[in-house]
């Protein structure tokens, strides 16, 4: 089963695939440049001490995003190990 969600809901230690971005303009461009492109595999590596931001592995780099930004990235879970 494949379930769709947004990146901020991806639990630490889990992986998914980027489905779409709801940013526009230069913010969108920046996210794309960082590797958040539809189809990119992404995994949540580590939450900061306060739980927000969270560090994600994407395209061979580690990028930390705030929750409000991660919300704008929709993802497809791999294999539905979480809902």
């Amino acid at each position, binding site marked *: 089963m494949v379930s769709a969600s947004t990146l901020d809901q991806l639990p630490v230690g889990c992986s998914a695939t980027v489905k779409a971005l709801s940013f526009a303009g*230069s*913010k969108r461009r920046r*996210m794309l440049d960082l*590797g958040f492109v539809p189809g990119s595999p992404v995994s949540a590596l580590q*939450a900061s*001490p306060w739980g927000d931001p969270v560090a994600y592995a994407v395209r061979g780099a*580690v*990028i930390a*995003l705030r929750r409000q*930004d991660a919300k704008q990235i929709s993802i497809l879970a791999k294999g539905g190990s979480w809902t």
Partner: protein
Amino acid sequence: MTENAYTIALAGNPNVGKSTVFNGLTNLHQHTGNWPGKTVATARGAFTYRGERYTLVDLPGTYSLFADSAEEEIARDYICSGEADATLVVADATCLERNLNLTLQVMACTHPVVLCVNLLDEAERKGITVDLMALQDALGIPVIGAAVRSGQGLAAIQEALHQAVHHPLPPPPPQAACPDADSLSPEECQDALVGAILRRAKELCDAAVRVPEHANDRDRRLDRLFTSKATGIPVMLLLLGLVFWITIAGANVPSELLSRLLFSLQEPLRGLLARIGLPVIVQSAITDGIYRTVAWVVSVMLPPMAIFFPLFTLLEDAGYLPRVAFNLDHCFQCAGAHGRQSLTMCMGFGCNACGVMGCRIIDSPRERLIAILTNSFVPCNGRFPTLIALLTMFFAVGGGLASSLVSAALLLLAIVCAVAMTLLVSRLLSRTVLKGTPSSFALELPPYRMPQIGQVLVRSLLDRTLFVLGRAVTVAAPAGLIIWLMGNLRAGEGTLLNACAAFLNPLGTWMGLDGMILLAFLLGFPANEIVIPVLLMGYLSTGSLTDYAGLTELKAILLQNGWTLHTAVCAAIFTLFHFPCGTTCATIRRETGSLGWTALAVALPTAAGMLLCMLVHLLFTLLA
């Protein structure tokens, strides 16, 4: 004689050692930092190879050429202008896939391009292998492997650049294109094009790079230690505390030796000046004014700086600072500030003027102003030694382990207060004059790197310590002369110095300080480093100093002038929070383009310091 001259553009992602390549090729010592976006302005340098001159233009570190921030615009405009004869792209071997993104974009804009795969030593440590030949064949451009930190690959880069400008390879075929550009919306096309470039980068990496499954396990383990809920903040405080403790415990003895040496030279200098026939008044101005102040600046400032800077640089080189930003980001978010402000704040610990300039990495004007206005709330390198001297004098007199631990803990407390104040004022600003919501931000956590300890020592000693010391001495010499003049010119009953101090005294007393301390802070406006030496000069301008024996003696002078623990606490608070130094003010004026904002940047920390001092003074008075 050089006949031909070529221009080479130097591009790369942040944190790939681009500045190290630049320094290595040009022998120009430019400080390299580990925070994203450090090189905001472009630097130029030159080298000569086979009798020809190459000018190297160091472009800002960027992830892409196509986004809208100031750095990317500079890089894009320069590369696309065709001004350079060739472009050298520096990439990090440990995360090549992401770095090839920029390489492919550069290749789409210009020709010829040379790719330098740097940090191969770091990759080797992680078991990552890069097939440079395969990469070169697939890309169709020269690919040079390097570990520039240890000097490997520089000659090959020079040769490749030489070949590139003389016998360039034919332009490679386009590496990525947007499929059916006509049938897609601009946004879909953007996704498709960026996707195509990233897919191509992945293809190239899959073919040329072998990453063992557990290559990044060490980094993840370190991240768990440095940034997890349980250990992130305690480890951060512990590390900072350790740095402070080493500085405090280590600086005491050399400081004393240095001051003994320098002060033993004072009378011989006077004798020398007398022998060349200078009048007594000039002899005194030079020895008691200029020389003595400079000697104090050197002996009080040099040892802590020479220990603190290299330690700080080690943390910076290892890649720890972005983790600090990661740990603290939530607080900045709550304060309505930009995530990158934690980075500019860290730069402020080095130098507030650099921190203010660093605020260029913040795109949103509102958040940038908040970061600029609050930068001076953290103490810079010029203020650390003052804090260290105050704390050591009043809390670590015995010199034992316990007392140095106590003063390190107090210094840590001071820093925590400074950060808390930064957040508080940022929040205040974002609720009042600079209303708005935080904009989006992404922070790269670069791979950890083994710092090159030898290089760090040399570089931080040469670049930072001597630079800061040089500036302090340049300012201290005239300040010493001024204070000597003020101490010797008569104004009514007493000296001009005493008249000024007496004028400031009521305000000083309100703040738990005295007029002379305030005067020292005012005279320290050009450089904060000289506050304590100027203060001592002020106190001693009427008396005479017979024997000097380090900080214990300094404390005795302060005690003679009515200092108590209470005065020391207030002086430490005012050291943390007062008007930014002259250089910082000028930088704020330049960066904001407004006298109004500059005035606010001066008023905020000064008001905060004065209020806090008055409050503490009140508390002490009530308790006593």
